């Protein structure tokens, strides 16, 4: 369990126990955990994620904000970065996966595998700093800081988030590309692939028309998994590029024991994860005639 609460964190070690107790009562922290949880859950169902603790202090001044208002701009930033990374990474890994399956065990296949495995093996912050070194310091192509605010226009946003997006791309491409390759190669031993060869189909046609349509389910699952990571797991990259995303917000909220914000972030992460996996399952069903067209 997380030690301490918002009262202790804001009032400091010198505070009198009575002051802390009074402050807790004001915030509702004196109630038992399960009651607080049900209060929160009841609100959450109705779309009310509660009020952030931060902005309050013991003197009774209340400049606190709604959790929704705190999270919304951050979530928009996170989704923007995630979409950018996904728009680069997903097509790239699909194409690389298909090409490596087509030219399997060739020099091309091996170099792509080695390269993607290398980038996934380094920690994200290291990849981020290397990119900063080459694309921001040595050659000043992109900015090293991705500080955006609601007034930043669209083009500027893309320009500033380029480096974090590249970093995330390098981190997730290996997983998706190797799964695409493996799912396709796995099918190449099927009798219907031999049948396709004997009916005169070329290698490209065999991969694209005969193997790939049967490989979507595992590929979609891995893509969903990585997209979820782009939303919920990018705090390190956000910190390196000082990017105002949900990940940083959540870390800050944990540090100050601002529990309503933590809960709000956790809820969003959970929803993201479930939604993406649901989509992957739907893709799995839609691409499988056995499930789509029952006997």
């Amino acid at each position, binding site marked *: 369990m997380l030690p301490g609460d918002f009262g202790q964190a804001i009032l400091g070690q010198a505070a009198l126990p009575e002051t802390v107790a009074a402050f807790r009562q004001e915030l509702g922290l004196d109630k038992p955990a399960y009651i607080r949880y049900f209060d929160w859950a009841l609100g959450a169902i109705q779309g009310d994620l509660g009020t952030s603790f931060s902005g309050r202090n013991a003197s009774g001044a209340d400049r606190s904000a709604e959790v929704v208002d705190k999270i919304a701009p951050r979530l928009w930033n996170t989704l923007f970065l995630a979409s950018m990374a996904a728009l680069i990474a997903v097509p790239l890994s699909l194409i690389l996966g298909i090409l490596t399956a087509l030219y399997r065990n060739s020099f091309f296949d091996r170099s792509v595998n080695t390269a993607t495995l290398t980038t996934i093996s380094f920690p994200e912050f290291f990849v981020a700093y290397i990119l900063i070194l080459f694309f921001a310091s040595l050659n000043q192509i992109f900015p090293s800081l991705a500080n955006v605010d609601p007034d930043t226009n669209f083009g500027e946003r893309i320009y500033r988030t380029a480096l974090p997006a590249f970093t995330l791309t390098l981190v997730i491409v290996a997983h998706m590309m190797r799964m695409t390759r493996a799912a396709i190669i796995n099918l190449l031993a099927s009798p219907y692939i031999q049948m396709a060869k004997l*009916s005169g*189909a070329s290698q490209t046609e065999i991969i694209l028309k005969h193997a790939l349509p049967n490989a979507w389910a595992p590929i979609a699952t891995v893509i969903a998994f990585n997209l979820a990571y782009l939303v919920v797991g990018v705090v390190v990259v956000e910190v390196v590029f000082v990017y105002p995303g949900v990940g940083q917000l959540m870390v800050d909220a944990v540090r100050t024991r601002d529990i309503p914000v933590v809960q709000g972030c956790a809820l969003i992460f959970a929803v993201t994860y479930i939604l993406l996996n649901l989509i992957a399952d739907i893709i799995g069903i839609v691409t*499988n005639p*056995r499930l789509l*067209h029952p006997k």
Partner: protein
Amino acid sequence: MKNKKENTTLLQIKDLKIEGFSDERWHKIIKGVNLELKRGEVLGLIGESGAGKSTLGLAAMGYTQPGCRITGGQINFDGVDLTKRTDSEKRKYWGNRMTYVAQSAAASFNPAHRLINQTTESTIRAGLKKPNEAFDEARSLYDALNLPNPETIGERYPHQVSGGQLQRIMTAMAMSPNPDLIVFDEPTTALDVTTQVEVLAAMRDIVKTYGTAAIYITHDLSVVAQMADRIKVLRYGEEVEEAMTRKMLKSPKEDYTKSLWSVRSIQKPEKKNADIILEVKNVDAFYGSFHVLKNINIKLPLGRTVALVGESGSGKSTVARVITGLLEPKIGSVKFKNRELPPSLKGRTKDQLQKIQMIYQMADVAMNPKQTVYDIISRPASFFAGLTGANLRKRVVELLEQIDLDERFIDRYPSELSGGQKQRICIARALAANPEVVICDEVTSALDQIVQEGILKLLGRLQKDLNLSYIFITHDIATVKAISDEVVVMNEGEVVEQGLKSEIFSPPHPEYTELLLSSVPEMDPDWLTDLLKARNY
């Protein structure tokens, strides 16, 4: 239709040698085979598994499977030596002038595409017809092949039609480009006899109508007798002999060919009247809401063999599952020596479990590949008889000798055994428990005819020596004749007929038994023609 000149040579294979890579070295699969095929002619290739017939069939198309290579000889197709052509050059022939019909249609259709698109794929790719023409032609081929709803069946996916229908659609796929040569690779092996008749008739018909040359690969003599003009026998990658079909059937020259011919001649005199050791009484069973068994009554006399015959899906194996307690019947019971057995496996005592043992169709997957022969056989011997140490080893050796193997096999793994040896080990494992009833579920179906004969003789001898009672599940009528005393005919979860073998096999038959028996191919090359005439096709 293309103009096809009769009596000119279409395919000529000269001294072909093919090697395959396994166990870290190259093995010879085809050792210098010659083959000649005229336009419009059907050649039957016959032999046991491992004879190289599929490899030769594929080689006729200039194709070798991954891990195989052509090391010598020529494949001249219409004047072009395919061994000297690259894959992309050969692709112009594949699916255009030569097509292939695979053994397992269910696995050979792409599950992701509609049947009509797969039927016409190669025709459209080769630019032989426009898509709409090709679709129309495919629909008329479906019609010619007696498929139900020929107009719409092509809109379905492979999993939506039955195995026999898929096999016919694959024939339509092979015919669609109107090729010069079709290679049929065991196309009816996976089908039930009643379905096989229809598929054979459809294939023979269409090959004749279009005047297409064909290579028909099979291990079943009676099937090849219906299809081929000429038969070539292969063994260990070499030709044994070749002759016109009628001549070959009447007077085979080589001993090996004669041994192939003689397999189907085992007959067992039936024995009657004995005490009933096992009885299945009024059993109804379900898979979920699916009613698999409907009021089943079967009696097994002591020391006798009762054969359960029927097509796939008739509920034969489910009867075995009910007897062994793997599936609880909804109604009814199983009696062993007049005592009712608890319906489920869990409720049965060790003693009850010991008395009923099972042998399975796929010996390969019925054994743990990581266990030695000793581990496999000793486990039931120690579990049921409580043997340990030297006694246990002695018992295992004794069991190995009972199944005509010996102590040398004791430390081998299943992967180091042949198909027939694996099935023998499974028999020994069943015997290790000292059972009184043994259920054999299609135990010879996956084996070559000569190996089948060995296993059937072994089972017969063990029955005599140990006074075993067998329930023998099979779809093969020749096997039934070879081993059974009594026969139970099943269809769609019901018992059609039960009685002594001589009664079941002599007329008059109930309608279904008649259909089943008349569908079993015979060695007579006119059998199919006569049958179709009799059935008014």
